[in-house]
């Protein structure tokens, strides 16, 4: 009964989404206030219905309703409650339902928080979001209904993939979706602007906090995924240039570009049509990501079960959304005029380079991701593009981006002027290079030019981001949140660069065969294998290998790594043992019994790897701070007092 209720709520939500787009777009076109109000009511109704629908799905998981095909496929009676709830988005159908719910939540948030926007504009935004919502709910109902029943009911479920039974992975998809779907908001703003032929750039100010929140969710989501892959996949890597990772990274790059170009559009009224195009592209890439993941055209660790009809539907949807938006853009964008110009080293110019480089990075990654698909589709053989390509393709635009960033954040609007920041920046360069040499000499066994350059740039960038707050130290309290957000995010970029440089230059990975009592030494850390024992977990049995780590005879830690066999069957799973410190991670993964008393194992030394994620989280935190900037809210309060 409950699943049918969920299904029914979903159908009603579809009708309301249709209503939302109809009343939203037509109401604004004909200037009928009642219709525009009706669009808002539809949003609220749709949100409640989707929430009900999702709650019905979660309820089916909590109550072990294995007569629901999706529940039977992704959970079983031994699964703990927390993971039963998380299993609701552990498969294709449920994750799409969550997607639809999140989209409705964004729409509802716009109704609730964006009262300062003129009614027609807001209702166009809601209308566009309604169209996207219609597409997704139709997709759910026609090809991926999570409420489909099994006849007869399964006596037992098949279990959630053990890899997904993990905290970070339970929260990774919702966060990532918040970001992915959140990019629909700037997309809708852009479409509404084009539809209206709006000449003012006030929309950029309205769109900024929304874009920032979507961007920061995307940042956190990608970071969580990377962290999870590191400790759970048992490989010790943090980024694989896997096509599905690329699918989330390309929208991130575009969204980063958008965050910066919106600033130019808001403050200076420039880059108008470019910003609109970026908003359209960012969401298009996030839809493309969905297509790549859901249609199964890609070989990936993330690929769910494949079904050609799903792929076709998303492809059609993709063509409709991107084609529609680009047509609108081609039709309306030429009417937009940009006032004034800017000097070659003004802030606008730096942000222009920022955009060009970020988009170039996204483009190069897109080429590498899609090229194999085209070759295959044209029957020219099955090829793949190796990770080293992506490494170089990413580095090529990133190096100039980092260098420009050092100066860019101090540049003034409109004029070529670095002001008082120029001297400290130039003085910081030798300091940063000296510190880089010191870091290498103190921490590592050999000198590497790449590490020297990477550390140098990272430290220079971190120093540069602190120059402005230092110079304004007597009036910290009066500095706007947006300033602190920028400072923190750019400092995060530096920290991230530091981490990536360290781990890429000095990591050590070794696959070994050891008998109990034998040891191996990595960077001065001696790992002694102490043998294995049997361990019983709540829904698995495991063999646990234990390792004593010492450094110059001093004990450092005891690490354990498990090879788990889940009761629901399937293949074994590795749980890695990790010791964290600010300087490095030590990582052990137990392999298999090789006979003759020996075990295979992977030992790793990962310098500075924590700063990769810490840096990314600081970027997100910076975004959050910037969202809290007073001027977005002051605006709100002032206009609330006025009659609408």
């Amino acid at each position, binding site marked *: 009964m409950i699943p049918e209720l969920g299904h029914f709520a979903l159908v009603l939500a579809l009708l309301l989404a249709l209503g939302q787009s109809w009343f939203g777009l037509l109401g604004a076109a004909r200037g009928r206030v009642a219709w525009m109000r009706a669009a808002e009511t539809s949003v609220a109704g749709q949100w409640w219905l989707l929430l009900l629908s999702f709650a019905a799905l979660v309820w089916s998981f909590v109550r072990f309703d294995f007569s629901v095909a999706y529940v039977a*496929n992704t959970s079983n009676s031994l699964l703990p409650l927390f993971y039963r709830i998380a299993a609701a988005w552990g498969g294709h159908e449920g994750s799409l339902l969550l997607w639809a719910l999140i989209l409705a939540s964004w729409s509802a948030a716009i109704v609730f928080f964006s009262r300062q926007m003129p009614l027609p504009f807001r209702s166009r935004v809601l209308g566009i979001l309604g169209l996207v919502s219609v597409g997704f709910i139709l997709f759910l109902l026609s090809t991926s209904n999570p409420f489909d029943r099994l006849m007869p009911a399964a006596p037992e479920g098949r279990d959630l*993939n053990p*890899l997904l039974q993990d905290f970070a992975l339970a929260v990774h998809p919702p966060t990532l979706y918040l970001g992915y779907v959140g990019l629909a908001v700037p997309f809708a703003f852009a479409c509404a602007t084009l539809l209206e032929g709006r000449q003012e750039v006030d929309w950029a100010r309205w769109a900024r906090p929304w874009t920032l929140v979507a961007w920061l969710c995307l940042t956190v989501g990608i970071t969580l995924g990377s962290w999870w892959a590191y400790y759970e*996949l*048992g490989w010790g890597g943090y980024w694989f240039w896997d096509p599905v990772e690329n699918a989330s990274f390309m929208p991130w790059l575009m969204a980063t570009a958008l965050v910066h170009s919106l600033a130019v559009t808001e403050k200076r009224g420039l880059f108008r049509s470019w910003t609109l195009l970026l908003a359209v592209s960012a969401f298009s890439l996030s839809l493309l990501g969905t297509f790549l993941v859901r249609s*199964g*055209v890609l*070989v990936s*660790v993330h*690929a769910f*079960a*494949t*079904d050609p009809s799903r792929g076709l539907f998303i492809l059609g949807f993709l063509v409709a959304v991107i084609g529609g938006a680009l047509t609108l853009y081609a039709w309306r964008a030429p009417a937009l005029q940009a006032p004034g110009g800017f000097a*070659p080293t003004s802030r606008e110019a730096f942000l222009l380079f920022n955009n060009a480089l970020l988009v*170039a990075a996204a483009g*190069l990654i897109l*080429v*590498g991701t899609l090229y194999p698909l085209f070759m295959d589709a044209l029957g020219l*053989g*099955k*090829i*793949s*593009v*190796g*990770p*080293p*390509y992506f*490494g*170089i*393709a990413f580095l*090529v*635009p990133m190096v*100039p981006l980092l260098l420009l960033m050092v100066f860019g954040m101090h540049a003034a609007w409109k004029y070529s002027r670095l002001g008082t920041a120029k001297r400290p920046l130039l003085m910081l360069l030798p300091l940063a290079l000296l510190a880089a040499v010191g870091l290498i000499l103190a921490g590592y066994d050999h000198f590497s030019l790449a590490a020297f350059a990477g550390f140098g740039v990272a430290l220079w960038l971190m120093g540069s981001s602190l120059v402005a707050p230092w110079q304004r130290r007597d009036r910290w309290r009066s500095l706007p949140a947006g300033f602190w957000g920028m400072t923190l995010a750019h400092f995060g970029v530096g920290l991230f660069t530091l981490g990536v440089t360290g781990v890429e230059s000095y990591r050590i990975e070794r*696959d*070994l*065969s050891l*008998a109990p009592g034998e040891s191996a030494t990595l960077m001065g850390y001696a790992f002694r294998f102490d043998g294995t024992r049997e361990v019983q977990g709540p829904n698995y049995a495991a063999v646990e290998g234990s390792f004593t780590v010492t450094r110059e005879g001093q004990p450092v830690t005891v690490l354990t790594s498990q*090879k788990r066999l889940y009761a629901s069957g*399937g*293949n*074994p*799973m*590795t749980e890695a043992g990790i010791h964290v410190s600010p300087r490095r991670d030590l990582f052990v*993964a137990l*392999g*298999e019994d*090789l*006979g*003759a*008393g*020996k075990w*295979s*194992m*992977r030992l790793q030394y990962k310098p500075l790897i924590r700063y990769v994620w810490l840096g990314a989280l600081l970027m997100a935190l910076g975004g959050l701070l910037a969202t809290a900037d007073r001027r977005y809210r002051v605006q709100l309060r002032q206009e609330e007092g006025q009659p609408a």
Partner: protein
Amino acid sequence: MTPRQKRIWMVVGIVGGVGLAATLALQAFQDNLMYFQSPTQVLEQPIAGERSFRLGGLVEPGSVTREPGNLEVRFRITDNVEAIEVSYAGLLPDLFREGQGVIVRGKLGADGLFVAEEVLAKHDENYMPPEVAESLRMPPLIKQVEAGGA
């Protein structure tokens, strides 16, 4: 320098930088293109010597051997018609099993032994890499794979 000269230099710099970047990226692209072959294709038109490629198929049941205590493992990858002997010294992925679809990346030696640098097995036991599913020569297996993908 006059503003005009400044602008010209800037344009030259940008064009040069973009050209250099494009060259680097293209070079990296060329170097990292990797072909996928099934055992039958390897025997028909081998990519010998220096170039790495990816070989995919099923791990032939009963073919996995190793000397006790030795990290190096040998197995044969088959498409149900031909089989290639593979050697790998390293940790096998958790999903590596006889009869399972895998992709290995490495080079083919002159002696016909494929030396793998990496072994990939996918993370869902019901999921088969599409390349592997397509390259298999036995229709019932492909059906089974498709049915298992639900």
